């Protein structure tokens, strides 16, 4: 299977095959095709532009390989570069004591589910996670986390009924955690829009109080052009330490991840790949790179040539 993009590029490079170099003149149309492909994959406009300019430098002067469509070759260059960008400095979770992890993000991104999934994943790694409900906003959010905690089999802190002060809940939860045998605390927080100033201030205060080792921004793989705004605002307010990309089991191309990675310079640490609690794994940059470019097994083809 060739990728859509490689197919398009194939036409652009019809005459170049096997004899020629990639040059400024023959690459222009190709770059436009790549740019469109990235935009259609929801990579943010400026991020796409900058990325293409950098990769173009690399591609110029390269010999077009025999037996390979130049289109595929270009896609391969992009793929490798994208993988590097998405995967650079991928660190494990920082679990230094008191090992607090805060989950933050837009409404409905998958924070509560990912909190429970992370607890399950940590449990499998031999840790003793604790789940802490700090969403005092959404109807039945606490019940949702408590149910998932039961399914995972980990203790869950639930705020006193009717409590609306999230800082107070943070304080109570931190005290509770000290009495528990668990050694990693996962704080699920309410969803919020990044431009909702009062709600952003609220979570900022919680972050300052908790001083967590990890602040993970949970983002839906189908996020569009606003990914940059979302990541920028959350990062400015909370100094996030990493990203969790959810709903990758769908067919969203996931270009938003590139933008978020780019503007925060923080690694994507985990991927959500289903609604079930075990459908969660460390993030694989090369898979997402292939997906953003909409490609099949081009890499193999190019490497054989």
């Amino acid at each position, binding site marked *: 299977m060739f990728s859509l993009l490689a197919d398009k590029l194939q036409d652009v490079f019809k005459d170049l095959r096997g004899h020629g170099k990639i040059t400024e003149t023959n690459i222009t149309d190709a770059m436009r095709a790549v740019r469109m492909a990235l935009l259609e994959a929801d990579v943010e406009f400026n991020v796409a532009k900058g990325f293409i300019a950098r990769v173009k430098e690399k591609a110029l002067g390269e010999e077009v390989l025999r037996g390979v469509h130049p289109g595929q070759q270009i896609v391969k260059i992009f793929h490798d570069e994208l993988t590097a960008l998405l995967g650079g400095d991928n660190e494990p979770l920082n679990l230094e004591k008191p090992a607090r992890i805060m989950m933050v993000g837009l*409404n409905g991104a998958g924070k509560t589910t990912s909190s429970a999934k992370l607890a399950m994943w940590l449990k499998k790694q031999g840790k003793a996670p604790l789940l802490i409900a700090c969403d005092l906003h959404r109807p039945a*959010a606490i019940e949702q986390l408590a149910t998932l905690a039961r399914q995972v089999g980990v203790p869950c802190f639930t705020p006193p009924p009717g409590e609306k002060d999230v800082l107070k809940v943070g304080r109570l939860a931190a005290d509770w955690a000290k009495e528990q045998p668990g050694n990693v605390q996962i704080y699920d927080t309410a969803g919020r829009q990044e431009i909702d100033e009062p709600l952003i201030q609220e979570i900022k205060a919680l972050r300052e109080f908790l001083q967590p080792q990890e602040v993970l921004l949970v983002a839906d793989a189908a996020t569009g052009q606003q990914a940059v705004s979302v990541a920028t605002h959350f990062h400015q307010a909370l100094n996030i330490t990493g990203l969790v990309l959810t709903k990758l089991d769908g067919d969203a191309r996931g270009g938003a991840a590139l933008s978020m990675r780019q503007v925060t310079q923080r690694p994507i640490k985990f991927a959500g790949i289903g609604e079930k609690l075990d459908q969660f794994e460390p993030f694989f940059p090369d898979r997402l790179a292939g997906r953003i470019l909409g490609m099949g097994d081009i890499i193999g083809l190019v490497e054989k040539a």
Partner: protein
Amino acid sequence: MAFGFFKSLIQKFSGKPVDWDELEESLIRADLGVPMMTRIMTALQGREDAEKLTAETVVKVAREEIIKVLPRDSVTLRPLASKTKVILVVGVNGTGKTTSTAKLAYFLQRKGHSVMLAAADTFRAAAIEQLGVWAERLNIDIVKGQYNSDPAALCYEAYQSADRKNVEFLICDTAGRLHTKTNLMGELGKVKRVLAKADAQAPHETLLVVDATTGGNALQQAKEFHAATGLTGVIVTKLDGSGKGGCVVAIQNELGIPTRFIGTGEKMEDLAFFESRQFVEQML
């Protein structure tokens, strides 16, 4: 707010010749989809005065092109003469179905209609409790079942109950599901078939809930849900965020499915009819 997209366009271009790249950027930022963007660009570039367009012209043309695509009048929700009208609410995970179900109930309630809810998400943790809290706040009847029970059977039961009580609207909240999962999409098909046994026309409305922050994938979502359930409209949510909701223009442009309601917050009153002119003027 998502407002002022065109305002920023005007500021950017006023007094300067049009920078096509920048214009393209502004349009793409709105998640209108590449075909819609191309359509606007073509309309602009095809003009005799293309070389010396003013910012105002650019904005006018872009708005006109979008308005052309959107429906002129919004279709209202009227009760049926002697039967319960069933509204099925569907969509991918986390878009705002449950909240929109509650908001829609409040919207109809305020117009003096009687409403009943069906908690047909029997899958997600605490989904039934979530809708239950809303029902309590709104003081309306809700039909609930057991977790992991058949949503189709629950909707059927809810219909019977609503019909018996002469309730005008029954709104069924369903579980989030990705449009790529054939078995889950099949489950929705079953909900429709079972409802049709009670009333051949039911569900009378099938509304897809789309998150305004969604990019190109929204179109794919609409396509698959339309194929599985025959959508009659879209509810676009979270327009109080920075998402422009341009994806609903793409859905209308490429699939012909109209947007009916907009969601602008987490509270019950944060729902309104979609008005295309207002949408284009204020939001795009």
